[in-house]
């Protein structure tokens, strides 16, 4: 596990049109690398994703899980933070429980780019030898995790829904397969670090406390070949008024909602409950919701106080995203719909009949259901 591998690569990479028979060289290099001496690898790492100087919430969620794992392994938690001018974020990470923040700052790291980030992190892994490394299962986090795991020759599991330490002290990673129909346990017995990605909303973030950790600045190796890929523009959409993972109430519609006029009922119910609107893939395909409102295995995981699913059949790909909701109410005209296996309250009815009355009754209600009750979490 040394840097010689990367210097072999830099010779003929990125020369347009040149033959690429270096994979042979890489393979030889990989196989000659001895398996790591596991005892030398210590510490639980988290990659903190930040954007425009703001920490992504998922970074704090992973930090919380890392502390849980660290207790069991009697190890320290270190957070890896890359960027430019992000020292205040490092302080935040310490407040949320990091024992150490490895801070790598450089103008070229201001925006995420695969190769510069992969190089800084791989170098750090090789030097510091962490036992476990968690990254967000976001677009950028997954991209980075995959590249780094390949570079440092280790295993990586995706979208873990649970993490724990088993009797042998190994990281036990639980992941969905076949759309979540089955859950599989993944281990990385002989390679280090044991790497895993986790999607936002799967774990809970902890409380901020006064903590005495330290920030350690790390040197940044910049190679010209890493900079040939350029981020030209970054476009951010408007954040929805109610981000569904932050709402106490989520009303979701599915394939059973026939048309746009019917969809309005979903929106009206959400509005009267001061909640957020979510959905499954069919409404996304229709354009009634946007990608960040889709709930399920390839969308968001939410844990609201109240989830109401309308015209949703309840396929596994969707329900994995709502299983931790406090109360699940399902409205579907098909009594055999799978959603009723996951609901606390099942309403077998044509939603059109129910919703018009429900919304009217709720609007009339002057009680504590509306307004200040169904608020966003702080």
């Amino acid at each position, binding site marked *: 596990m040394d840097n010689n591998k990367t210097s072999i690569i830099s010779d003929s990479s990125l020369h347009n049109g040149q033959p690429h028979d270096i*994979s042979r060289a890489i393979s030889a290099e990989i196989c000659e690398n001895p398996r790591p001496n596991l005892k030398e690898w210590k510490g639980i790492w988290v990659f903190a994703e930040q954007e425009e100087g703001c920490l992504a919430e998922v970074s704090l969620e992973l930090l919380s899980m890392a502390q849980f794992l660290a207790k069991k392994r009697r190890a320290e938690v270190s957070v890896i933070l890359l960027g430019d001018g992000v020292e205040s974020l490092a302080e935040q990470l310490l407040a949320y429980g990091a024992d150490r923040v490895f801070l790598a700052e450089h103008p070229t790291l201001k925006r995420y780019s695969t190769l510069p980030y992969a190089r800084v992190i791989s170098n750090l892994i090789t030097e510091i030898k962490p036992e476990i490394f968690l990254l967000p299962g976001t677009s950028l986090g997954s991209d980075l995790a995959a590249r780094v795991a390949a570079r440092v020759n280790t295993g990586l599991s995706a979208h873990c829904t649970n993490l724990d330490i088993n009797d042998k002290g190994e990281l036990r990673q639980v992941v969905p397969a076949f759309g979540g129909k089955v859950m599989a346990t993944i281990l990385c017995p002989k390679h280090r670090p044991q790497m895993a990605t986790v999607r936002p909303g799967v774990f809970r973030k902890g409380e901020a406390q006064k903590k005495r950790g330290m920030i350690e600045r790390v040197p940044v190796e910049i190679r010209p070949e890493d900079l040939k890929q350029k981020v*030209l523009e970054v476009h951010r959409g408007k954040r929805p008024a109610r981000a569904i993972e932050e709402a106490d109430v989520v009303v979701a519609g599915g394939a059973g909602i026939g048309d746009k006029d019917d969809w309005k009922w979903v929106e009206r119910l959400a509005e009267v409950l001061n909640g957020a609107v979510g959905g499954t893939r069919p409404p996304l395909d229709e354009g009634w919701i946007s990608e960040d409102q889709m709930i399920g295995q390839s969308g968001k995981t939410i844990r609201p106080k109240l989830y109401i699913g309308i015209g949703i059949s309840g396929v596994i790909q969707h329900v994995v995203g709502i299983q931790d909701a406090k109360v699940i109410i399902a409205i579907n005209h098909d009594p055999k719909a799978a959603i009723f296996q996951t609901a606390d309250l099942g309403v077998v009815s044509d939603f059109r009949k129910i919703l018009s*009355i429900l919304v009217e009754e709720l609007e009339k209600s002057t009680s504590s*259901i509306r307004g200040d009750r169904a608020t966003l979490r702080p």
Partner: protein
Amino acid sequence: MNIVVCVKPAPDPKRWDSIQLDPITKALQREGIPSVLGPLDKRALEEGLRIKEKYGGKVAVMAMAPPSAKDNLVEALAMGADEGYLLTDRAFAGSDTWATSLVLSKAIGNFGTFDLIICGSYSLDGSTGHVGAQLAEFLSIPNVSQVFAVERIEMGTLRTKSLIESGYRVLETPLPALITVIREINTPRFTSLLGVIEAESKPLMKWSASDLGISPEEIGLQGSPTQTGDVFLPEMKRRAEMLSGEPGEMVQEIIRKIRQALA
């Protein structure tokens, strides 16, 4: 433009409900479920075909899969790919993304030159989404994940739009490069009868581990850093109170439940 599209034939999702988990052996019983090209595989292939149509060149389609996946590659040839490569060997079975990416990289290394590799963002079954980036790493080329638009290829660089949670990014990447694509990138074409006929005379190579110069320890279960342990069915049942009957009455029950939730 020499384009390689990597696909992963996987058991047909329409038949996933018939996948059984043997409670004793913990093995997944998936016999009899045919493998299909996933929607992202088809989109990767479609994008390759469009780029070839615009800039000239050829499209090779490649899969590391059991022998039965030959049919899936023939389908890809019928869609318009020029050559097929089936990497198949018992020794590949049980490969995780690391080992799979290694095998694909060796096969592509066998080609000589290439300009662009296109993969779906994630496969139907494993859905890790990792092979694209890992393959790019083994080939030491840059990659772009979750591309939904290939805007321009000129002067040896590729301009793409790719998705992030808060919006999207526009990247410029020197070739050769690898991209993974998502649903929004295109709508795949249907295969024509002519395409099916032409597919029969297109080359379809089968390569084994020894053809690729890979030894068994590097691949399959042995060569995979991650190992699958326990497989189990998720427990997600709740005791549902079921309502039916008069809408008016049901609504009162629903409101009661809502109050309970928000209390």
